[in-house]
């Protein structure tokens, strides 16, 4: 639901403009397509970027001002460079539209646009925020800033988080966004024997290097009328609540991560990316990204769409739709975590969940997966797949696993990772309302094609 914000624009008093043409080359009808593009313009001394920049849409010969967000701006020798973001209302298949960037008006006041995204800071910690638009409400963890709770305001409007640990139940439970994470392997550490295998709480053979264990990491926030982007980065230390401080461990840093979220005011989806890098040689039992974890009874079904790689141009992939077993206690082996292990490729087109009764829906579109070693090129990671896990009363989730072992803790199954392993991902998290299956599948296909076929953006010279 887009806030109506267009206003007539009078170009008098403006120094100049540059035109940008947006064109659909994929034959898709576009609605509310975010545009985010680089630009540069000549500016005089004393130029006020917050007041003297506008995006104008040419509509039937009329100049209409639309909300825009300019960021990452720098001025070098009279040239202002940066990025501008705005939303394009709609575009016909193979259509094109012209927009203009007007600049330079010493009399202009900073524009005020209605902001449909509300971001408020919470009381519980430096990274505690509530991000809300008409479609969703998302709350971040007070210390780490990871997505903690998610509500689909068009659906059941209940939080989807699960409780990994009983101890956190009364403290808001555990985060929906669970990655990137790493089980660093120390199979030689046997300080507490094998307590966890006998029902103990933690085990010394691993350290939980999870991004949601961050304590107020370095962060950068870009906010404006179009989106708010939060980037956090830093060393991922063993999770403070799940680490035995008495264990002898190497005090140096060996895993670093960066996580970015971008939330739009008028869109039901958000962008998420992460990078995880090994800073020194290490061993692991697994590394995971692309992992959103939900309470098992939130959703009734899941769907999985494969990547189109290898398909003939007009052939189609089969989208699998499966009834969730965890939600209704129908796992044949009640303690086996994964329902799909080592059969889904690491890169899918998208996957998602919906609930037939509450209409809650969530889909994750995988835009990018890139794995490398910054020193030697090829990454060393081994077993690499998307896993699907569900357990009654616990959680349901997909994750992209790297160097995953099914026989955790076994020393011989720890994977050696050299310094410089770098695992990158970009995803879109889409909260939707499920009415019926054909409609959901059609809207997912359309969204996937739209997200993966960006508009062609051409600036005039």
């Amino acid at each position, binding site marked *: 639901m887009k806030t109506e914000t267009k206003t007539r624009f009078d170009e008098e008093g403006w120094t100049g403009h540059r035109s940008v043409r947006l064109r659909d080359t994929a034959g898709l009808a576009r609605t509310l397509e975010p545009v985010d593009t680089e630009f540069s313009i000549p500016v005089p001394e004393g130029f006020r970027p917050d007041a003297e920049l506008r995006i104008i849409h040419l509509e039937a010969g009329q100049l209409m001002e639309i909300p825009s967000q300019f960021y990452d701006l720098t001025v070098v020798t009279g040239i202002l460079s940066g990025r501008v973001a705005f939303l394009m209302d709609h575009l016909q298949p193979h259509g094109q539209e012209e927009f203009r960037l007007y600049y330079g008006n010493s009399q202009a006041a900073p524009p005020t646009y209605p902001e449909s995204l509300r971001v408020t800071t919470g009381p519980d910690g430096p990274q505690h925020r509530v991000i809300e638009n008409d479609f969703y409400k998302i709350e971040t963890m007070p210390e780490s800033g990871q997505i903690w709770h998610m509500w689909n305001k068009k659906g059941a409007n209940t939080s989807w988080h699960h409780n990994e640990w009983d101890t956190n139940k009364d403290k808001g439970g555990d985060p929906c966004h669970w990655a990137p994470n790493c089980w660093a392997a120390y199979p030689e550490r046997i300080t507490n024997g094998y307590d966890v295998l006998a029902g103990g709480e933690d085990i010394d053979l691993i350290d939980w290097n999870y991004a949601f264990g961050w304590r107020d990491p370095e962060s950068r926030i870009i906010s404006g009328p179009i989106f708010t982007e939060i980037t956090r980065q830093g060393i991922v230390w063993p999770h403070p609540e799940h680490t035995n401080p008495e264990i002898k461990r190497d005090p140096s840093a060996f895993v670093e991560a960066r996580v970015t979220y971008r939330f739009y005011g008028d869109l039901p989806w958000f962008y998420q990316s992460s990078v995880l890098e090994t800073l020194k040689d290490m061993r692991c039992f697994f590394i995971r990204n692309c992992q959103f974890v939900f309470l098992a009874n939130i959703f009734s079904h899941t769907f999985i769409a494969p990547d189109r790689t290898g398909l003939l141009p007009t052939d189609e992939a*089969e989208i699998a739709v*499966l*009834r969730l077993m965890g939600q209704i206690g129908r796992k*044949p082996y009640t303690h086996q975590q994964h329902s799909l292990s080592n059969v889904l490729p690491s890169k899918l087109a998208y996957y998602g969940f919906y609930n037939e009764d509450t209409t809650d829906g969530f889909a994750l579109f995988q835009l990018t997966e890139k794995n490398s070693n910054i020193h030697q090129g090829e990454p060393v990671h081994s077993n690499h797949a998307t896993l699907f896990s569900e357990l009654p009363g616990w959680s349901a989730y997909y994750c992209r696993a790297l160097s995953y072992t099914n026989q955790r803790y076994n020393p011989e199954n720890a994977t050696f990772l050299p310094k410089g392993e770098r695992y990158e991902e970009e995803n879109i998290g889409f909260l939707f309302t499920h009415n019926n299956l054909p409609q959901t599948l059609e809207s997912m296909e359309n969204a996937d094609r739209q997200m993966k076929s960006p508009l062609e953006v051409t600036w005039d010279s």
Partner: protein
Amino acid sequence: MLFSTCENKIMKYRGWNFEKTLLIRSESPFDRRNEFIDVAVAVETKCAATFSRDVRVVMKPAWNRFGNEVPCQVYDIREHGSITVFRVAFVADLPAHSTQRVGILYDNPEAESPRYETDLVMSDEGKGTTIENGHYRARLDPESGNLDALSIKLRVLEYTHLKGLTPECNPQGGVRVIFANPKDPGKPSSASAANWQQPETNWVEGPLFISLVRRGRLAPVGQPATDRHPSLELTYRFVADQPVIHVSSRLEFHEDTPVFGIHNDWVTVKKDCFSHYCFRPDTPSLPATDVEEVGHILVTAEHIQGLPPGPIFGGFLPYNLAWHAFISTVRTQKFRFDYALTGIRLHESSQAPGGPALHYRPATYLSHDRDQLSWFRAPVYVKKQNRTENIITIPKGSVYAETYALHLGEWDEKKNWLHQIDALGKRLNQPLTITQHPCLLDDTIIPEEDSGLFQSPNFGFAYKKAGVR
């Protein structure tokens, strides 16, 4: 099974003039009890006049000692001049890492045909041939010979409950080719052995197994079969006292053929008989010390209603899954049995002149339609079967061959079934080494031994991990 208890075994075999000794080597680290062995034996033709009744198989504890006689079944006797080759099947117990010495006695003109007890029964009451043993009952379609109805025998104490698992009067698809018409791509037509009418058949019937080999052409429905159409050979083998049916297919293309699909191993079951589909992947990137995790999908009619007919899980499951199964975990007061129907992969080969045969989106597929569930494996699978550009042309001379074992067993939540199936898959894919002695003296060329009804198993690679869960 009959086992001889004759005290003086040397005396018992007076009258037999010759013996071939088989050395059967098991490299398996586990005991192989009731191992079904099927081997080709070559002897001089002059000693083979009464093979139909004088061959005996005797376990030998030492080179010069006879042990128990075991039931055997002689078949496929072929004379090649001075040499005769025949196949003999029997069952033996093989301890781990052992060599078993077995005597094949022959040439006794006075011998009478042996009579062995067996639980394998074949009958025909007009609705098609029925074959059953202590574990299952299988009925074959009277027209095509395809497996039509399959029931598992579930036993508790003295009761045996017969549970039908597959739809009746709806022969199993087996192998299906979806032909494309380049001039009218919107009208594909399919053909499967289920459409055959009285194909060429070859039965082997005995106390140890019953086999049926059928050969024919796959022509689109409504078209007469010609030499230009692909030929298909389908084999079933029903084994005594074992909960297994071996199924084998060999599909050969005799001219360049435009298709939208080649689907093998179609198995269709009644939806209301099963609750889950499960499968065991093979993950080469897992270290050998790791374990594989079995995957599960809920398939109860109640829970998949509303899904569009067709593949409900397709394209993700590897073509070379080690095994997959429909399982029933619906334990109720009324019906306390849980059971499983499992397809264990034994052999796959596909060749074309000059290289490997064409594959397009090869995968294992799970499909449903109305009250039925199916699995199939497709070396070639096109979803959009109405576009010229999606037509796959299979080159002349391409061959797609597969063998699997259909296993019927009781399921349990404690993973006994799971480990049994994995162990069986490992065992069936670990062939024994069998040599026969003495060698023939002259330079007579013995025709290359074929492997009997089936190709040698080649899915041992899938069982190299430390285990399964």
